[in-house]
């Protein structure tokens, strides 16, 4: 595996069920088919609607090959960073497993535990060094209004974790719904860190929850980005 390798992820932070546009589970499946992992953080609510939201969040993550956690607003920050770390590790472990399989016909679990430790050290090193492309998709439906400061700080905090890695970081932020009739809005294009000022001004809660369109848009951002980079530097190797 060379330095060109990139991990691509979408992180959806939402407090409810999608109610506009295509099915978010299908969107997540499409994204995963393009080599992107979709993680979901659901913010706890109450009542039947919340329960439906949790189930949808879990289905999105399952279809997107990622993780799902339902948390209190105060835990969004720690959860976002834990999930990104664990799913990067998972992706790399899968790659290493495939490599082991093709070289020795064994999975990590087939190895004696002491050798597994060495494999995991390699995984940890790769995780630190691999490039990461991340799109954070923020639910800005009306019910999110009082959670905006917490979500904003959590996204900034996630960026603090990711930008000190050795590997390069490209992070973009979008919100859903967008302005007027738009179902999504690009808050920040790909950059090597989160621009807090743009978050402060752009995050306004209003309207419904177009989660499906947001995942499709996030995936298209990553795929378009990949295309422009490929044209510049030749093909890359990607993991999913």
């Amino acid at each position, binding site marked *: 595996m060379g330095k060109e390798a990139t991990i691509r992820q979408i992180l959806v932070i939402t407090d409810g069920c999608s109610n506009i546009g295509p099915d978010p589970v299908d969107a997540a499946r499409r994204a995963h088919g393009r080599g992107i992992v979709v993680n979901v953080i659901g913010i706890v609510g109450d009542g039947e609607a919340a329960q439906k939201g949790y189930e949808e969040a879990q289905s999105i993550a399952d279809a997107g090959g990622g993780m799902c956690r339902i948390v209190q*607003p*105060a835990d*969004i*920050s*720690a959860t976002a960073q*834990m999930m990104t*770390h664990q799913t990067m*590790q998972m992706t790399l*472990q899968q790659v290493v497993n495939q490599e082991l399989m093709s070289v020795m016909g064994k999975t*990590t*679990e087939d190895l*004696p*535990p*002491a050798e*597994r*430790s*060495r*494999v*995991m*050290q390699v*995984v*940890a090193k790769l995780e*630190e060094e691999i490039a990461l492309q991340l799109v954070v998709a923020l639910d800005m439906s009306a019910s999110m209004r009082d*959670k905006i*400061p*917490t979500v904003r*700080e*959590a996204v*900034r*905090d996630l960026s*603090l*974790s*990711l930008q*000190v*890695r*050795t590997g390069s970081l490209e992070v973009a932020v979008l919100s859903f719904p967008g302005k007027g009739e738009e179902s999504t809005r690009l808050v920040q294009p790909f950059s090597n860190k989160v621009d807090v000022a743009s978050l402060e001004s752009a995050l306004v809660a209003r309207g419904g929850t177009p989660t499906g369109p947001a995942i499709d848009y996030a995936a298209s951002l990553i795929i378009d980005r990949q295309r422009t980079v490929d044209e510049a530097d030749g093909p890359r190797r990607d993991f999913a």
Partner: protein
Amino acid sequence: MTDKSQVQIPSGTWIVGKWTGRRWRIRGCLGVGANGVVYAVDRDDGLPGAMKVCEGAGQVAFEWSLLERVKGARSSFPAPQQIDDSDHPHAQYFYVMERVGGKPLDKVWLGLRPADRKRVLHEIVAGLAHLHETGYAFCDVKAQNILVDSSDDMRVRFVDAGGVTPLGKAVRQFTPTSDGAFWGVCERRASAQYDLIGVALMALTLDVKPPANVFSQSQEQRRAWLNKAILQVAEPGWRSLLQKVLRGSVTDAPTLARAIQSIPLPKEPDGTDWSAKLMWGSLASATLSTACAWALYLRLI
């Protein structure tokens, strides 16, 4: 990920290792964390241990590799004993380490006298100094990860090596309230300084609880809270040391250990406290008996 509802293995169960052929008997549960469950165990030859069980083989192997890296006679971490698999459905992947005594710092802090607190903080920093010499930082410094044995001269041990990171690399596991980056005072990169700031933040937040809305505050607001909280620290020696650490002017553990050592203890805290209490007590009972005498005299009671 594991939650508290995870089925636990009953005491008395024997866990048989597939690779080592060793057997361990479960004695009870020592704790449940975000990454797994830790059981008190006795090995077939009687060696006591602590068995950490995680859901994934990878997590077990990774934590084991960290324990292996930081082990040594002077290490504050539990010594690694064995890593193995078993057929038990709730202990498929596990490792066994030294079982360490003591209680988590957050449980004992309030009951510690100033001299004990000084000793505990000194021990923590001395443990970090040794760890940093080996090229690693602890990173997940938090009171729950520090066990203090009051029956053994306040001996301090670290548990949960899961956050241990080579110096200079990105921190993967941390607790917001003792994370300098969260408070806007440093980067989230493994370094001696990152750990020392963690200790200062931990010590401060053990005494002064952060506001409930800290997660929705901006970094400027968080820093402002820190500055105010430091002013609430009564001892001038501690106050100025915490300020220095959080400002980033103490960058290595041995320097901080020496600085802690040289902080004077408050004068005869116990003696004065006790006699003062006695004095107030006798004054109160004197007032009370006088009041009773008057009440009796006036036939109020």
